[in-house]
């Protein structure tokens, strides 16, 4: 039995190695001059959508500046506001704009850096390619239960939604469902990746995922004829979008400012786009 255990440990080790051998980011070649002569720690927490961007940026900065240490944690937008407000971290990320109360209570300063859009997705074989927000709301509320009612073939609609902590769910619920109800029998998946996998497999599925995650395995449905693309999200034609923010308590100290500037630089832009988010400019 010990041999089998060690064999499985070996397999897991190999998997870990394979994962860590993923190609390095291009941003490492980018100039990181803003950090000259700076040293210290930057602690980041909050929104989970930000994590891939923050981690890549942190890795690039730390590689070029060995005296800078950056930690990145999640927790969600609410945690991001609280932690930065209490001074526990230097940057608190949120996937939504701060409320006036939050700004006033903690004296926070926001730095938007990317746009994240959410697309309604169905199986690629599904003939339905266009839905109105009204129809999407009724589908998720369980009022429309058959694809035939929205121009598809006769088949039950299988609902897929996201977990309570999901920022993607929050945008979709606010901007597309207009805070309408989601049927309790909807399947809940825990990530954008799991959503894509579930919708790609199920011919009768409907779900939603970040525009950056959409590929050929699923069909992104038009909302009132507007294609959910990065261009439409940027121009404001596609409504189900949000901005991603970094927030600091008051003016950031020089090291934190340098990090924020790096995220907003062209090199940071490359990292942002690599993870499927849209640049503000």
């Amino acid at each position, binding site marked *: *039995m*010990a041999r*089998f*255990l060690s*064999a*499985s440990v070996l397999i*897991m080790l190999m998997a870990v190695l394979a994962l860590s051998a993923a190609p390095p980011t291009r941003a490492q070649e980018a100039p990181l001059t803003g950090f000259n002569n700076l040293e210290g720690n930057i602690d980041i927490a909050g929104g*989970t959508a930000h994590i891939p961007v923050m981690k890549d940026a942190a890795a690039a900065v730390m590689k070029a500046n060995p005296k800078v240490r950056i930690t990145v944690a*999640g*927790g*969600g*937008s*609410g*945690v991001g506001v*609280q932690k930065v407000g209490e001074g526990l971290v230097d940057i608190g990320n949120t996937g939504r704009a701060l409320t006036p109360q939050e700004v006033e209570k903690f004296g926070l300063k926001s730095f938007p850096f990317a746009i994240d859009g959410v697309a309604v997705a169905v199986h690629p074989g599904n003939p339905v390619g266009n839905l109105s927000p009204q129809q999407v709301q009724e589908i998720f509320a369980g009022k429309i239960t058959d694809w035939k009612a929205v121009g598809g073939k006769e088949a*039950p609609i*299988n609902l*897929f939604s996201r*977990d*309570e*902590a999901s920022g993607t769910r929050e945008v979709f*619920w606010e901007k597309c469902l207009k*805070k309408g*109800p*989601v049927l*309790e*029998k*909807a*399947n*809940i*998946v*825990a990530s954008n990746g*799991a959503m894509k*996998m*579930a919708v790609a*497999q*199920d011919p*009768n*599925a409907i779900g939603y995922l970040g525009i950056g995650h959409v590929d050929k395995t699923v069909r992104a449905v038009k909302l009132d004829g507007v294609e959910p693309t990065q261009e439409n999200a940027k121009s404001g034609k596609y409504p189900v979008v949000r901005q991603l923010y970094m927030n600091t308590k008051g003016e950031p100290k020089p090291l934190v400012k340098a990090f924020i500037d790096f995220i907003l630089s062209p090199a940071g832009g490359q990292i942002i786009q690599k993870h499927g988010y849209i640049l503000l400019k």
Partner: protein
Amino acid sequence: MASGQNPLADTGAAPSLRRAARRETLVRTALLGATLISGLAICAILGFLLYFSLPLVFQGQAGEILAWRWRPFQGDFGILPMVVGSLLLAFSALFLAYPVGVGLCGFAFSQQHHPWGRLVLAVVRLMTGVPTVVYGFVSVFLLVPLVRTWFEQGTGFCWLTAGLTLSILILPTIVLLIWSQLEQTTPETRLAAIALGFTPSQEVLWVHFPQASRGLAAAAVLGFGRAVGDTLVALMVAGNAPQISTSPLDALRTLTAHIALVLATDSTSLAYGSVFASGLILFATAAAVNLALRRLKAPPP
């Protein structure tokens, strides 16, 4: 697992006896330390759960959490559907895995000198080393589409799929526990059984199983504990809908999956509080399972 050596076995001369005694105290102290640390860890976990759950009770929110509806965005934070989901899933997995486990074990034991018997045991031992996520992943790609197309109802992410996957996960636990009990039958009993003219299968059925009855019960309890505690299979294939399932093709959410899904939410909301209530319920379940096991393993009065 016969690798543990008696520390006194290799000490030949008298002076080395003292060294052996010193080593004995050393080992004993180390083991005591390890026990204390794990004991403290358990107490710390319980304390932590109580610290975060008790405010819910005192602020009168316990009633809101021990309710039947989970609609966090409409202000309903009931986790009872998840309690039911955990129990339904664990019992159905046990119901599926237990007969198979007992059967496999009986077969492997009666045929232990036959290649087939040895193969079965080897496969079951290999299964203990497979990480849970592998079962979940294979199930998502294999079992979920099968269930969806066969029954033509629902998404395939459901109680049935999760129950089947989980039953495979807990099968080795059941088989190996029963096996360890069967192995404890004395050679005299075996010889007597053979002398009486029992065939191998009769021997297992009428001699070994009755002797290992406590082991059989313990295997069921431990299998249940493993099924209740598993998170990943439920999270990946059960569908996670916070509802009371009435059909095996309905999605369900377990307490473990609930914790995983809700943990990252805003720490001031009642949804976050429900995580600690779920943790406390799971802790109590684990404690109950362990008490039942202790009771079963104690020598008969």
